[in-house]
């Protein structure tokens, strides 16, 4: 029995003696799993933060239209003193509030796209390698090994600096150094599942390979992948900020990382141009990690406590 599988009804009946007798009549689908998930305080908080972040990314530009990189005021206005610039302005006089709003867009876009691309690519490659075995698996494993051998961030820096730094290159670069972890994980899980009896059963009743892979095995490893995805989003946001720190961000878009990059020279005298976007990164990544943990507890039947 896993936490996921226990229906409150069954649990209630189980308080009584005779617990050993399984009464399937009590079983029912746990349709409200999602809501129960949100009852965990940390999961609820993380979800709320992320939902708020995504909402901000969507409506932010409506709230504060215009280009966030426009110089709209005096430089280095402190936060919370001038309501035209609630979070103050940076060294050039750009509004930090609109920067943060638009930055949510870039950071989340980068994070989500990287997770999406590396998940799609990694799952496809890893699943096919794990399921097909043989020389395909051999080739893919070597490929993954190569990516494991090159320090990822170095590859990323090489890639982004030789191409034009832009949101697209950053996303491609990050996806390039993230897919291998997904592929390795997927491959291992697929190999683990493909000899399980439910897969053999499907095979013996004539279900075709792709159907087994995508219809039977993938749904079972989805929880692991979802958790991985949340971690990739978080680490992509961090890596994007590190790139911006090295001056390799997209110069035409305000991202949290690039705001830190341009504000950090003044960090000793003016904390807010760096700390404000930095705080947004930390809170977002934190929320993503909390969410990942909570999902892990929720989706992974073996975890506990």
């Amino acid at each position, binding site marked *: *029995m*896993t*936490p996921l*599988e*226990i229906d409150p009804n069954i*649990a209630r009946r*189980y*308080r*009584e*003696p*005779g*617990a*050993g*007798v*399984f*009464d*399937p009549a009590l*079983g*029912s*689908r746990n349709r409200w799993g999602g809501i129960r998930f949100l009852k965990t305080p940390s999961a609820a908080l993380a979800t709320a933060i992320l939902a708020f972040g995504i909402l901000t990314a969507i409506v932010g530009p409506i709230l504060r239209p215009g280009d966030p990189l426009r110089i709209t005021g005096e430089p280095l206005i402190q936060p919370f003193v001038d309501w035209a610039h609630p979070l103050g302005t940076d060294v050039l006089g750009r509004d930090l509030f609109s920067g943060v709003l638009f930055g949510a867009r870039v950071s989340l876009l980068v994070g989500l796209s990287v997770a999406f691309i590396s998940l799609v690519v990694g799952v496809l490659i890893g699943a096919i390698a794990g399921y097909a075995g043989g020389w395909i698996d051999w080739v893919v494993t070597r490929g993954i090994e190569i990516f494991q051998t090159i320090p990822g961030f170095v590859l990323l820096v090489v890639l982004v600096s030789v191409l034009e730094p832009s949101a697209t290159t950053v996303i491609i670069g990050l996806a390039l150094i993230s897919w291998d972890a997904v592929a390795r994980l997927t491959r291992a899980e697929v190999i683990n599942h493909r000899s*399980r*009896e*439910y897969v*053999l*059963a*499907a*095979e*013996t*009743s*004539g*279900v*075709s390979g792709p*159907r087994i892979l995508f*219809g*039977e095995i993938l*749904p*079972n490893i989805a929880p692991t992948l979802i958790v991985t995805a949340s971690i990739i989003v978080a680490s992509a946001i961090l890596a994007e900020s590190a790139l911006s720190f090295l001056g390799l961000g997209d110069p035409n878009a305000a991202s949290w990382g690039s705001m830190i990059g341009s504000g950090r020279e003044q960090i000793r005298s003016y904390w807010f141009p760096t700390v404000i976007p930095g705080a947004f990164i930390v809170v977002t990544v934190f929320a993503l990690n909390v969410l990942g943990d909570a999902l892990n507890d929720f989706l992974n039947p073996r975890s*506990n*406590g």
Partner: protein
Amino acid sequence: MTRHMTEPLLTVSDLRISYRNALRTGIAVDGLSFSIAPGESLALVGESGCGKSTTALSILRLLPGETEIEGSILFEGKNLATASESEMEKIRGNDIGIVFQEPQTTLNPVYRVGWQIGEVLRRHLKISAREARERTLELLRIVALPDVERIIDAFPHELSGGQRQRIVIAMAIALKPKLLVADEPTTALDVSIRRQILELIDRLRRELNMAVLLISHDLPLVSQWTDRAVVIHHGQVMDTLASRDLFRNAKHTYTQGLIGASLRLDDDRSCNQHRLAEVSVTRQSDGSFNYELRRPNPPATPLPVAEPRQHGLAVNDLVVRYDRRTAVDGVSFNIPKGRTLGIVGESGSGKSTVARAIIGLVRPESGAVSLDGVRLTRFSGTALRSHRKRIQMIFQDPFASLNPRHTVQRILDGVLVANGISDRLERQGRIASSLDHVGLPQTAAGRHPHEFSGGQRQRIAIARALILRPEFVLCDEPTSALDVSVQAQILNLLADLKQELGLSYLFISHDLAVVRFIADDVIVMRNGRIVEQGSSIWTAPSTEYARALLAAAA
């Protein structure tokens, strides 16, 4: 065996244990009382989940944190339910030893076994490393391990299951405990080794004069190896009786049901004429239980007569290799329509591999599988698939063989879709009728596997095998993960289906009694070869190996 009329060594009275954790919240043991005299051997018997292990663990206070224990566990006058943790540490391993079911996991994989045995000695005695090693070697000899000098430095994974279980036993008796708790010490072992382990425990009991609490769900085993048996259901005692009276004097309906469902090797019932007793337990609205014993009869419909023209399923000189190992080495047999062939043999003898080769999960190296004279091994792709439809398979583990993410409807529907049945209504109808066949309500279709009990899951697996209307069904240990009472239901169901639908089975099992009940013919396998065949083995086995198997199972 004599009853000792001395003071009991252990007295459990009115034990109530409830779990409060993420896994479950509820009562596992509900007012259990029993006692063991010094040197006595007592059995706790009951179905899976009835609270046997919980009781055993509670004696050594090995239960997880969020568990509440009420009642008393008096061991030599001390109440273990309330003893302090340091007192318990002195008792564990010293006065009470314990042996668990699964020898694969009870040893720490990263330490040498000798070290692990020595750990008990060093913990409780002040002895030098040399002495500890000497004592360990001695213990290894006591548990009758060969080549002790090598084994003492082996890692657990380098030993066989039986050897590991001996290590665990050596660890448990290292300090000559007064009580040995053995929680299903042989269920995970091969039949041939099972007997040796039980003999060992019994010998040690006599030699060390220690009491044994043996936990099992195997009634024949209990009746042979213990003095007294306590039958438990839902955490309560149903029956307490002398073991040798178990099969004769059971008072409680539930005990009688268990006995009726148990098969013994000397029992010459056959599924063609008989059905096993089924005990059904229902819960009243007031929470109490109602036990009912049913002895179903075989259906009146006569056995369909096999047409002589049809050969059925033939396997010819089959050879299967994994990497470099030969798992099946020139096996040939024939299953005529409407017959059941049983395969027995020790673990690793290649039983499953034969079934897998027939159904196409592994590619045989040579040899032929043919169906009604048509060679399946020649085909590939769609042609093969259309023939293979006629053969289906049921797996051992009903928990693992159903995809936990799909509903029953989807599991069954997927098979039909994959086999090109595109008419939705037809699929619906077939799903309904196959659920009917296996005795599940139609409402089962909408649920997920985890909402069913083990027996019900195995019914779903059978429904999945039947939905393509096969002629041959390969059953690879379909009941070995199930309780006796549930096993009886499944065996009855298979027998009924054979008669109703004219199915033929290949039935693999390590339980010889079950094979004797269900199969018309039998083959014995060893190291990938057939060593003996024909029903004469039940009465007059001709090979040493078959004799040993029978003796071990008896």
